[in-house]
């Protein structure tokens, strides 16, 4: 009756079949639904297999590197920084991201409205979408799971300093914490301040310390730190095929 759902053997303790069945690797309800819908869409001509492949290839190559490079370049080049803060779409192109791709009008869910929020010595920005998970996917890749959780979304808008402290980020009282709730068509990213101890660094070196978490605003770039704050990762049952 619970066909397709990979539940463990039910765990109440009445006494029927005590023999241990071998672990059966069953297709999940989710996989069944996705396959059925995709097949029917293609058979009905809603889209072609080639169009599906095209978008899959787009989705597989997005990630946070162009965003980090954009910020590194802005740290090194005041003209580029001005461009990034006034015309983030053009600045994105210079690091290889065209927000019109792959459809010609942007990804349907991310639109073509991108704004970079500048951190200053007196303002620290942090982003959230309290309604769903709006996130600058084309330039930052898919959002981390914690960013999508109701927990982060409920709390960051109301208790930002407490939530930031859980990421190990304590900001002084004379720095304004500015929460950007991105709940319409704009997508936002934070431009952190260049940290001390990076004089003479190249764009590549700087790019390495501008982690995804710094661009969300839950961390600050730090020389020697090239990983995100949250590293614990729940493995997938059947991860994305290579």
């Amino acid at each position, binding site marked *: 009756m619970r066909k397709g759902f990979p539940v463990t053997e039910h765990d109440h303790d009445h006494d029927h079949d005590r023999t241990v069945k071998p672990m059966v690797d069953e297709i999940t309800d*989710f996989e069944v639904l996705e396959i059925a819908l995709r097949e029917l869409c293609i058979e009905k001509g809603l889209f072609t297999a080639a169009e599906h492949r095209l978008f899959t290839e787009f989705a597989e190559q997005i990630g946070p590197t162009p965003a980090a490079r954009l910020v590194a370049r802005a740290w090194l080049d005041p003209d580029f920084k001005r461009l990034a803060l006034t015309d983030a779409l053009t600045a994105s192109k210079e690091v290889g991201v065209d927000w019109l791709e792959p459809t010609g009008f942007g990804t349907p869910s991310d639109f073509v409205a991108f704004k970079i929020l500048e951190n200053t010595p007196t303002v620290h920005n942090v982003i959230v979408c309290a309604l769903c998970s709006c996130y600058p996917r084309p330039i930052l890749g898919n959002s981390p799971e*914690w960013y999508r959780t*109701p927990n982060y979304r409920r709390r960051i808008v109301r208790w930002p300093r407490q939530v930031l402290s859980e990421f190990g980020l304590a900001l002084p009282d004379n720095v304004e914490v500015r929460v*950007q709730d991105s709940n319409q068509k704009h997508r936002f990213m934070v431009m952190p301040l260049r940290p001390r101890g990076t004089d003479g660094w190249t764009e590549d070196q700087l790019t390495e310390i501008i982690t995804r978490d710094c661009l969300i605003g839950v961390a600050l770039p730090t020389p020697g730190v090239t990983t995100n704050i949250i590293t614990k990762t729940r493995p997938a049952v059947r991860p994305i095929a290579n």
Partner: protein
Amino acid sequence: MSNAAERAEQLALISRLKATYPEVPEWPMPDQMTHDHFLAYMKNPHDVGGELDVPAAYENKEEEQWELMTYVLCEVLGMRGIWVSEERRRIGNVDVGRAVYLGIPYYTRWLWSVGRMLLEKGYLSWGELTDRLAEVQDRYAGGLAGRLPQAHPKAEGDGSKVKRNAHHLEAAGIGDPQVFAGKADAAKFKAGDRVRVRELPALFYTRTPEYVRGAEGVIAEATYESPAPEDETWDRPDAKPEWFYIVRFKQCELWDAYTGPMIDTLQTEIPERWLEAAR
């Protein structure tokens, strides 16, 4: 196949899934329903900002193949003019109701929205969907045995007669929201203006969070013109675009007993219909 005991067990499981306030009887009489409770039931479940919660251990998640395929499915349907993403957000984040919203995985709701939309708009019949679900289950009956689940469309359909929105063609090469530029009335507000978020009796869908309604803020920027999400979500190509604004609020005014410094702020984007001049 299930037997009577298994059916009873599943019914017992379902009986424990509560979706109502415990202090009010289920299926209340109209006089038992207070205004506040009505608002709570009518609130869009996606609008969680400011709800009470305690710290939790945040973690990442490796993406499942079906999750990537679900994301792609939704986006390709948008790319080909079957829907706009605002239709997905309503169907998958709001129409599901609170129990499903909080109870099933993130991308499962994306999938749910696809099935629901295809049925509602007449692209699929219930029978076609149900038969195909059963067929896919049967293909993998007895387990995957080392196989990866895969889609095998029987043919590629003729897409030339499929009903599609005008938006995916009109916006091509231009972008969304750029395609709406110049189509709204003159902006009512400008940067620096003080505004109040209206308290509209919004039923069914909105993207103006409850936590800013009634609050006063300052226009940080007039951003772009676009139809409001409350129109886009119901596929209304006739909807007139309006101006959107980033509004800045002082946290100490927005929240009762805000615990941080007075200088902290919050910004969010709001369509013009939700704003009025503050005096």
